[in-house]
C-alpha cells in the first residue's frame, strides 16, 4: 500500500519542473509513554491560562505575538504565512555541489521524494544524472510554514531530500573551554591506544546494530509491575588514575572484551572484562 505523503509540490532545477511528493524517511521506534503525576499516576492535561485573568483560553482564540522589548506585535496566522515567500509549493534547486564537500554535521531531517502526476520521467532523468555525477543539489522549500535549506541526493534508488542546518545554528568549537592536561600522554600510551583503535577497526554495517536498551526497559517495567523496585547502583568515579594500566589490560588477553568483538554483545563482554580488571587492581 502506498504511504501518505506529507507535502506535494514541484521540484525545479533550471527551467525543468518535476511534480513530486514528499514522505518522511524515518519512523520512531521509541517506546511511547504518557506524562503522568508521579504520586498517583494521574494523567497530565495541558491548559492554556491567561496570565492576568487566570482564565482558560481556547486554542482558536490564540495568536502569536512578537516581543519587541517595549511592547508586543500580534500577528495572525495569515500574516505569518507571508514569511513563506512567493513560491510556497516549489523546491528550487539553486545549484549543485560535490557530495563529499558537505560535512555530515549539516544534515538534519531526511525525507524521500516520490513522483506525482506527469513527473515520473523527469524524476528518473534527474536521479540518473545525480547518480552519474555524484553531485548533491542544494535548494530551499517551505515545509510546515518554515523555509528549509535542503540537500537533494540519490538514495536507495530514489531521490532523497534532507533538511540542512544553517552555519550559524552550529556552535563553533572555540566556544568550548577545553582543560589542557599538565602532562601530555606518553609515547607509549599513544602507541598502545593506537593499537587498540586498530584492533577495533571494522566495516560499517548499519544492520548489525540494534536498540538493546529497549528490551531492558521492557524488563524493568515488568519487574515494576510485579511490585519490585529497580535498584540504582551508586555512581562510581570512573576516572582512570592509571591510563597505562588500563591500556595494557585492554590489549592483553581478555581478547573477547577489548578485541574485535561481535557487535551488539560487545558491550556485555566488555562489562565482564571490566569487572575482572577492577578485581585485579
Amino acid at each position, binding site marked *: 500500500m502506498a504511504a501518505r505523503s506529507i507535502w506535494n509540490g514541484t521540484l525545479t532545477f533550471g527551467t525543468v519542473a518535476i511534480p513530486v511528493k514528499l514522505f518522511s524517511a524515518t519512523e520512531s*521506534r521509541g517506546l511511547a509513554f504518557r506524562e503522568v503525576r508521579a504520586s498517583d499516576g494521574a494523567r497530565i492535561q495541558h491548559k492554556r491560562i491567561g496570565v492576568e485573568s487566570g482564565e482558560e483560553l481556547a486554542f482558536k482564540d490564540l495568536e502569536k505575538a512578537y516581543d519587541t522589548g517595549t511592547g508586543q506585535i500580534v500577528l495572525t496566522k495569515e500574516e505569518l504565512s507571508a514569511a513563506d515567500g512567493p513560491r510556497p509549493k516549489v523546491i528550487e534547486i539553486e545549484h549543485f555541489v560535490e557530495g563529499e564537500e558537505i560535512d555530515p554535521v549539516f544534515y538534519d531531517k531526511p525525507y*524521500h521524494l516520490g513522483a506525482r502526476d506527469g513527473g515520473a520521467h523527469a524524476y528518473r532523468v534527474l536521479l540518473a544524472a545525480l547518480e552519474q555525477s555524484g553531485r548533491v543539489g542544494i535548494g530551499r522549500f517551505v515545509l510546515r510554514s518554515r523555509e528549509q535549506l535542503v540537500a537533494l541526493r540519490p538514495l536507495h534508488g530514489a531521490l532523497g531530500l534532507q533538511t540542512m542546518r544553517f552555519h550559524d545554528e552550529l556552535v563553533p568549537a572555540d566556544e568550548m573551554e577545553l582543560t589542557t592536561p599538565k602532562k601530555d600522554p606518553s609515547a607509549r600510551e599513544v602507541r598502545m591506544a593506537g593499537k587498540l583503535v586498530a584492533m577495533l577497526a571494522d566495516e560499517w554495517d548499519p544492520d548489525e546494530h540494534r536498540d538493546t536498551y529497549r528490551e531492558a526497559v521492557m524488563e524493568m517495567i515488568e519487574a515494576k509491575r510485579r511490585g519490585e523496585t529497580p535498584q540504582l547502583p551508586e555512581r562510581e568515579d*570512573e576516572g582512570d588514575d592509571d591510563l597505562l594500566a588500563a591500556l595494557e589490560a585492554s590489549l592483553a588477553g581478555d581478547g573477547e572484551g577489548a578485541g574485535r568483538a561481535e557487535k551488539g554483545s560487545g558491550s556485555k563482554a566488555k562489562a565482564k572484562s571490566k569487572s575482572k580488571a577492577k578485581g585485579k587492581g
Partner: protein
Amino acid sequence: MPRPMWVGSLSFGLVNVPVVLFSATRDRDVHFHQVHKDTGERIEVHRVAAGTDEEVAWDELARGWETDDGDLVVLTEDDFQAAQPEKTRTVDIDLFVDLEEIDPIFFQQPYWVLPRGEGEGPARAYRLLRDVMEKAGQVAVGRIVMRAKEQLVALRVQEGLLSLTTMRFADEIRDPQDTGAVPSLEDDPPTEQEVADAVALVEEMTADWEPESYEDHHRERLLALIAEKQERGEVTIPEPEPEPEPQRASKDLLAALEESLQRARDRKRPGSRAGSPKGPVGTPGRGADDGGSASDEAGAKTGAGKGAKARSGTS
C-alpha cells in the same frame, strides 16, 4: 559555558574517559508568545491532573506505561537508569570505521564532548583518545542512552575537540520503495541524450559548498514582516505564484534542459558571479518584485573573486 546535556564516560577498551556533552547546535529561530487574539493577553501553559485544577510541578512529573490490559505503571528517571545502569552512564566504543562509509541519513544531533571536571586524569585520557583518533582518521561508533532511548553515536575529532553525533538505527529509516511513489527505472527509462543533458546541466550549475553563504531567509522575512506590521499596522500578503508547469513530453524535457544549460552558461561568463544562489525563491524578499536585491548583496559579499574557484572541480 552552558549546561551539559549528558554526564558520563566514554569507554574505550578498559580505558574510561569521564566526559560531559554540550549541544553543538543552537536555536536561531524567531520566537513568539501565544496571546489572546483580541486582548493580547499572554498565556501560560499549566500542567494539571486531568479533570481537575490541581497544578502539577515539574518535579512531580513521571512517565506512565500503559500495559495491554489497561494497567498503568509509573516510571521515574531512576527506574530508567536502573534498567541498565552501565548503559545510561557510559558510551561504549564498539568499533572504528571510516567516516565516508556512514551515509549522512543516519546522523541526527551533534554534541561537543569535553573532559569532565578540571582534573588531570580526565584531561589526559581525553587528550589521548583525541590524539589517537585524529591519527587513525577514523570515527568511533558506540551507543548512548539519552532521554530513555538508546541511540548509536559517531565520535570523531573536529577542530581539535571530540564531537559526538547521535545516529538512527537502520530500522528507523524507511525504504523509499515502500512509499509506492518512486518511479521504476525499467519502464520508460531515460534516454542517453536526456541523461547526458541533465548531467551537463548539473555540472554547469555546480559550485563550491560554502555553508556561510546560506542565510536563513525565513528568519529575515519574519523580522521584515514584524517591522512592517509595527510601522504600518498591517502586512502585505503576497499572492503565491502558480506552480511551474512540468515538461510532460520527452521533447519538452530536452528543450528545458538545453534552455537551462544555455542560461547557466550565460551566467557564468566572465564578469558574472559564478555559483551564487539565484532566483526569486532564494531571496528573502516577500514579494516577487523586491526578490533579488538581498541575494545580490549576499552574492556580492561572498562572490567576489571566487569565480575561478567555483569551477575548479569540473574544468
